[in-house]
């Protein structure tokens, strides 16, 4: 016998203390209730004639005390949770991995696959042997233990109530790693996977997952996988016309028959486009929907069968995308006159452009608030908080020192851009920068933290940097002395520079994938953010290195609040393995095929506390029964 609950010394102390109190109460003289009767001598005739009964009366108090002490001993014993020695070591140790991926939301079974998985798990719980212990874990993109390794069916059933599939894939490798860690050094270990079997091979950075001696069982869930899903969706604003945008959409069929679906595009919740798509079995179609307008924040794509019925997996029938926020930017253009610059600035209707002569530039900058200042061959002192684009700056206030004179192109030829950083925000979307021809350039000397974005044989052509938190870009030549304005790269440079200055994230994502960790930029100084999920839950998420970090598990539009700002985040499943929700009947890990789960061996429960409490209950019941039957009174 061993005690898994309170130790023996504590049990003895409890029994001693409470038992002493009980005995003291019995030693105290019982104060009897006084009952007036008219003539006691008549009672005396009866009482004096029963000496045996008086002996029983005396013994009855002793028996009553013994019953109370027995009752106390049973209850104190239950607190110790006594077990038969070695009983806990003979049972199986089971880890049940409940598939919590998006494919378990399929509706091919009555009540859904999740309900079938719950019922299967419940059967496993009820089939536990008396010494078996089980741990339930939900396996989606992460593995979440729903309870500790326990032999308490009630606790397991409570934990099972927390199982809820999410809009993510299933990471079988992570699930098996978790299970083998839990089952290490446990006797008779088993891993039971309850799910539809649609998993990637269990392999991770450490290689193939091995079960380390644990038996693998598989309980397949699901009936069929007739599904059409959106496997990719993205939207973006046109760089040179940010009021318009385009959407890219990929739809794939996993059905065994030709499917005709209606594709609806919604902008900020309002339908803007409806088309019909016919998909052969297993076919994929990619659609680019150009020149769209009408959306300010979000775009949603929906597919639905033409016949009005739903496919087996609704989770991938919708996809969401968000568009970057647009805000007005005040730009001061300091120039003696530059038509190319003026034309480029006209491309973005969200720019408030003010032109100023070089002589009045300093005064305007002091008097008014500008986000960006563009200096065309001139310089002027700029206040803190104003980003600057310099077109071949000359003067004392130039951000970069330069060598005197110009670097000229050889006679009969031109200077060109030989290399440029394609990942820099200034060169985003540029394709023809290298075709630019320049007559002469000024050789600027970049600082140690400045970057050369584009360069030619004669020296840096485009430079970028940061001064006290204010970004700047320098064009080393005069656009009038080049064919740069004739290329798309010129207005893109102006627009990219302003976007970069104004804080637009060049790495902006129109949507995130569920089952991954999202890192969302937040304003400087914010150390905590809040995300409201599509289901209405509000989660506080940490901020690391200027980015809010969140593990997304829900498809739909999320709202991020960070400091004074808020923005929408779109999340999509985009997991073909989940969309391919046809159930698998077998599961193979490391070459070994999983077998069906087996029930535990029937037998007596080894938890003796329950029997002790039953004994106490029986004593109380007998006492109650004899009292009310007037046997003991």
């Amino acid at each position, binding site marked *: 016998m061993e005690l898994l609950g309170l130790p023996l010394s504590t049990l003895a102390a409890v029994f001693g203390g409470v038992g002493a109190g009980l005995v003291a109460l019995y030693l105290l003289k*019982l104060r*009897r*209730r*006084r*009952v*007036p*009767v*008219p*003539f*006691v*001598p*008549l*009672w*005396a*005739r*009866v*009482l004096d*004639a*029963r000496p045996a*009964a008086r002996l029983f*009366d005396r013994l*009855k108090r002793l028996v009553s005390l013994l019953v109370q002490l027995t009752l106390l001993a049973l209850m104190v014993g239950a607190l110790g949770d006594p077990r038969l020695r070695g009983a806990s070591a003979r049972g199986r140790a089971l880890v049940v991995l409940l598939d919590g991926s998006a494919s378990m939301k399929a509706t091919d079974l009555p009540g859904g696959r999740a309900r079938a998985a719950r019922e299967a798990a419940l059967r496993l719980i009820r089939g536990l042997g008396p010494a078996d212990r089980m741990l339930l874990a939900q396996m989606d993109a992460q593995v979440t233990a729903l309870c500790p390794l326990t032999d308490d069916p009630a606790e397991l059933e409570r934990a099972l109530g927390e199982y809820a599939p999410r809009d993510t894939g299933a990471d079988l490798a992570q699930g098996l790693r978790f299970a083998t860690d839990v089952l290490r050094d446990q006797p008779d270990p088993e891993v039971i996977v309850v799910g539809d079997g649609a998993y990637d091979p269990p392999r991770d950075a450490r290689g193939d997952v091995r079960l380390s001696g644990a038996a693998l069982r598989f309980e397949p869930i699901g009936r069929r996988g007739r599904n059409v899903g959106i496997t990719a969706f993205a939207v973006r604003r046109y760089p040179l016309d940010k009021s318009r945008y385009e959407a890219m959409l990929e739809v794939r069929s996993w059905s065994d028959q030709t499917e005709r679906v209606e594709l609806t595009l919604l902008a900020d919740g309002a339908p803007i486009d409806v088309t019909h798509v016919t998909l052969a079995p297993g076919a994929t179609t990619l659609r680019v929907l150009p020149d769209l307008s009408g959306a300010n924040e979000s775009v949603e794509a929906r597919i639905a069968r033409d016949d009005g019925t739903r496919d087996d997996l609704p989770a991938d029938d919708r996809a969401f995308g968000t568009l970057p926020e647009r805000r007005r930017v005040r730009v001061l253009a300091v120039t003696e006159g530059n038509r190319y610059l003026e034309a480029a600035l006209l491309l973005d209707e969200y720019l408030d452009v003010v032109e100023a002569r070089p002589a009045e530039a300093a005064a305007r900058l002091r008097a008014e608030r500008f986000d960006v200042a563009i200096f065309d061959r001139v310089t002027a002192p700029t206040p803190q908080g104003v980003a600057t684009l310099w077109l071949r700056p000359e003067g004392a206030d130039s951000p970069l020192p330069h060598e005197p004179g110009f670097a000229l192109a050889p006679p009969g030829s031109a200077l060109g851009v030989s290399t440029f950083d394609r990942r820099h925000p200034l060169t985003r979307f540029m394709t023809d920068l290298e075709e630019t021809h320049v007559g002469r350039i000024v050789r600027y000397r970049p600082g140690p933290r400045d970057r050369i974005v584009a360069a030619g044989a004669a020296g840096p052509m485009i430079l970028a940097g940061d001064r006290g938190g204010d970004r700047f870009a320098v064009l080393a030549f005069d656009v009038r002395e080049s064919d740069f304005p004739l290329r798309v790269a010129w207005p893109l440079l102006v627009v990219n520079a302003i976007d970069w200055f104004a804080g637009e994230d060049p790495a902006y994502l129109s949507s995130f994938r569920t089952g991954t960790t999202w890192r969302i930029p937040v304003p400087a100084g914010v150390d905590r953010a809040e995300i409201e999920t599509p289901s209405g839950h509000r989660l506080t998420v940490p901020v690391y290195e200027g980015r809010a970090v969140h593990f997304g598990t829900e498809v739909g539009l999320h709202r991020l609040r960070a400091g004074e700002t808020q923005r929408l985040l779109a999340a999509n499943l985009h997991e073909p393995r989940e969309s391919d929700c046809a159930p698998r009947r077998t599961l193979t890990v490391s070459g070994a095929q999983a077998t069906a789960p087996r029930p535990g061996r029937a037998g007596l429960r080894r938890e003796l506390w329950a029997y002790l409490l039953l004994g106490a209950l029986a004593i109380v019941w007998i006492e109650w029964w004899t009292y009310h039957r*007037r046997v003991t*009174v």
Partner: protein
Amino acid sequence: MGFFDFLRRPPKPAPDAGTELFDEAFQRRLEWLAVASRRVFAGRLRAERRTRKSGAGLEFADHREYARGDDLRTLDWSVYARTGRALVKLFEEEEDLAVYVLLDCSGSMAHGRPSKFDHARRLAAAMAYVGLANLDRVALIAWSTRVARRMPPARGRNRIFKVFEFLRAAEPAGGTALADAARTFAAENKRRGVAVVVSDLYDPAGFERGINAIRYQRFEPMVIHVTDAREADLAARGDVSLVDEETGEARDVTVTPELLARYRAAHAAWREEVEAFCKSRRIPYVAADVTGAFEDQVLHLLRRVGMLQ
């Protein structure tokens, strides 16, 4: 009303007021009882109450020797002239009956609700009214361990209100000692007659001693045994202390169903013992349970003494 008021014991109802004891309905029932009993007295009882006395009777009965102090007017001069013997003439004269109602006022009579004492007072009033209505001399004696109060002999129906007044003033208290009270009663009442004992007979010295004491003083006892069937049962169970209401004597006892059954048997045996004692000594006896009608119980007693058929 407080939340825990249900835990409090309900207030005890007020004891029956004396004014309600002999209300108009009760008096009507007494009248009916008097009428029922008068038919009997008119036919039979009157003759049994004739006594031979020298004096002014109408019907000559016998002679006896003259004794000093006899009224010379009753001397039969003609017999004296013929025989020389001085004989006085005896005439039969109707004599009124002395009825003494001995009401037990011990503490045990207050037990129960309705109490035995109230029932006993109604029985005493009924017996008194029957006597008064038949022109008997009725006296009431309240007793416990001694004679506590007494109402002098009275005659005539209109004296019933004095009876009511006496009974209303009576209160149950103290122990029971019928023998002692009977001796005092006999000493105080030279005229013998019927002594109607209205009592529960819970006498620690034994009810036999008390009844015999009345008999030995040459009174004719009648026993109205006031009983309460509920006394044979006990609501309490378990370990209790039984306290005698009169003596305060306590007995610790564990009340079980088996003990209660034994007590019920003992109680019934004791009642049979009382009745058997009375029968063996030709003492009219009636057991009057508090739940019964007092007039029926009185008539039952009258039948026992042969006054009623």
